[in-house]
């Protein structure tokens, strides 16, 4: 069996080799991330059966778990690792033809570091290690947001950096407090001792950690950086930021809440926070004229929906949240990738400039439409299956409050539909502008989009395909005692 640590080591190693390999051949540097993530995808898929059966514990220092750093490759970890490597392969393939300007080898280096950091966050079982990987993810995304070097890019990168580094400092204080209480950094060890400390003393570290991680996850009051950063980055990076970075931030929030602390008294707060995030994100998205800002606000809304699903805290609700994360990654990545070439074509991010593009770039426009339909939740696509699962889980609670909140969630979906269909209407049915020649996106750009779209349709038609991994992942998050047992032995 392959050692799971390769999932982190290979991208980091390749990332730091990239500036050296540039001296050998400048032309071939851009293929390094593709190869690296194909390797990662193969390793993570080959690990899935073993990880679902029994979490793999990798002792990096050679000591038994409470000491030294461990990697915990359980169902949740391998689910996210596979998702990250899948998005990594497809988006780096897309970048072959999309990234034409700027210092390209730096782009590819930072891209690999970002995804290596994300993989590290989802696989690690050590809370300080989580912080370190989180910082790798954050710092490379700050730099990538500023990649184009224009006014908007630099300004939003600075905004993102200032807010993100306050968040990391808060997270670090929280970790320090936990270390002071328990004298250990292993998540399973902290979780097993959490009952020995008075609950009132645990509130401060919990609040600090949730706030710190919540900034990266863009939960409502902490989301000011997201629309700027996601709209100013190159489209391939927006796809990764929306599809991977915020989901990883959210994973960390969920892991801290569910595994580390006892959340039961905190769930109602998260539930309301999720719905508020959802409504605010969708309402802001509706009033946007810029396509990438609209997609960025819609990501905030989706994050709200996922928080709502997790706060239901039933097996089905958490499963729905994980499913919604997968569906959001696939759909939002597809939307940003398709929007990227449409923006190249029209030279503008304004939605009004997309008039008639449905006839000029038929395939790209069709793929964009598939993405929006999936995000809104129309039946044959994956978004329907995941939203349906969340609504069913909420209805199963059977209380008045939940029914009310479902009403709000469905209202937000209607808003989502209204602004996405407006874009589609502009693309297909408004008068066609002259001056744009009829030509498709380049083939290396189309292939990843087609793969994303076919995954959206395939999983939407046949959700059992991934239920086999979502169900054990949901029970890993719900049942923290089996997690503790599997790590500490």
């Amino acid at each position, binding site marked *: 069996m392959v050692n799971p640590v390769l999932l982190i080591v290979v991208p980091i190693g390749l990332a730091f080799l990239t500036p050296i390999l540039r001296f050998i051949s400048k032309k071939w540097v851009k293929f390094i991330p593709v190869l690296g993530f194909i390797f990662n995808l193969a390793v993570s898929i080959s690990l899935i059966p073993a990880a679902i059966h029994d979490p793999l514990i990798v002792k990096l220092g050679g000591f038994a778990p409470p000491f030294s750093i461990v990697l915990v490759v359980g169902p949740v970890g391998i689910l996210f690792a596979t998702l990250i490597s899948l998005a990594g392969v497809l988006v780096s393939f897309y970048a072959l033809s999309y990234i034409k300007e700027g210092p390209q080898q730096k782009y590819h280096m930072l891209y690999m570091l970002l995804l290596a950091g994300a993989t590290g966050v989802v696989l690690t079982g050590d809370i300080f290690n989580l912080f370190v990987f989180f910082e790798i993810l954050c710092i490379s995304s700050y730099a990538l947001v500023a990649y184009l070097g224009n006014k908007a890019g630099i300004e939003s990168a600075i905004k993102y950096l200032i807010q993100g580094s306050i968040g990391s400092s808060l997270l670090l204080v929280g970790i320090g407090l936990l*270390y002071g209480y328990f004298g250990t950094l292993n998540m399973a060890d902290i979780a097993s001792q959490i009952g020995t400390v008075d609950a009132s003393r645990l509130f401060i570290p919990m609040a600090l950690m949730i706030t710190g991680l919540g900034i990266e996850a863009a939960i409502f009051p902490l989301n000011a950086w997201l629309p700027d950063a996601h709209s100013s980055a190159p489209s391939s990076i927006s796809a990764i930021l929306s599809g991977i970075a915020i989901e990883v931030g959210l994973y960390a929030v969920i892991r801290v809440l569910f595994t580390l602390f006892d959340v039961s008294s905190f769930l109602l707060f998260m539930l309301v926070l999720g719905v508020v995030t959802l409504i605010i994100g969708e309402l802001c998205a509706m009033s946007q004229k810029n396509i990438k800002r609209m997609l960025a606000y819609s990501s905030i809304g989706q994050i709200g929906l996922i928080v709502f699903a997790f706060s239901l805290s039933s097996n089905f609700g958490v499963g729905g949240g994980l499913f919604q994360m997968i569906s959001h990654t696939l759909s939002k990545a597809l939307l940003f990738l398709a929007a990227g070439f449409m923006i190249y074509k029209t030279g503008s991010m304004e939605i009004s400039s997309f008039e008639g593009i449905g006839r000029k770039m038929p395939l790209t426009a069709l793929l964009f439409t598939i993405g929006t339909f999936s995000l809104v939740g129309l039946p044959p696509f994956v978004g329907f299956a995941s939203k349906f699962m969340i609504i069913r889980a909420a209805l199963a609670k059977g209380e008045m409050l939940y029914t009310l909140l479902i009403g709000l969630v469905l209202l937000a979906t209607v808003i989502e539909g209204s602004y996405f269909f407006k874009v589609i209407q502009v693309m297909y049915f408004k008068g066609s502008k002259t001056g744009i020649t009829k030509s498709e996106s380049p083939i290396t750009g189309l292939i990843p989009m087609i793969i994303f779209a076919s995954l959206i349709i395939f999983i939407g038609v046949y959700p059992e395909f991934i239920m086999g991994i979502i169900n054990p992942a949901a029970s890993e998050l719900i049942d923290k005692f089996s997690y503790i047992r599997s790590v500490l032995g």
Partner: protein
Amino acid sequence: MAFLQDYIYYIGAFGLVFIGLFIMLTKHNLIKVIIGLSILETGVNLFLISVGYITNGTAPIFSKPGLNVREMVDPVPQALVLTAIVIGLAVLALVLALSIRLYKHFGTLDLRKIKELKW
């Protein structure tokens, strides 16, 4: 007084954290905000060190025979702080590089005048 003596490091650490946060929230000049960030990070590092510190304790590697465990300083937070300092350095270098570019674009570092992006 005893309270002050026991908790002086924590008071100092959180004092620095709040001073840093205050600077970041109230100042309009980007360089001052970055200085605030640096003070905030110093406060966090000092806090981490003080979690493991024992007054007059020694390093565990130099322990004489017969030395009590309670007299040795916990080395783990110090390793954590080393990592945190390196991360802080990377962030500081990046944000300073970005602020040079920002100045080239806008001709000012006053955050009130930089309004390319709006809600």
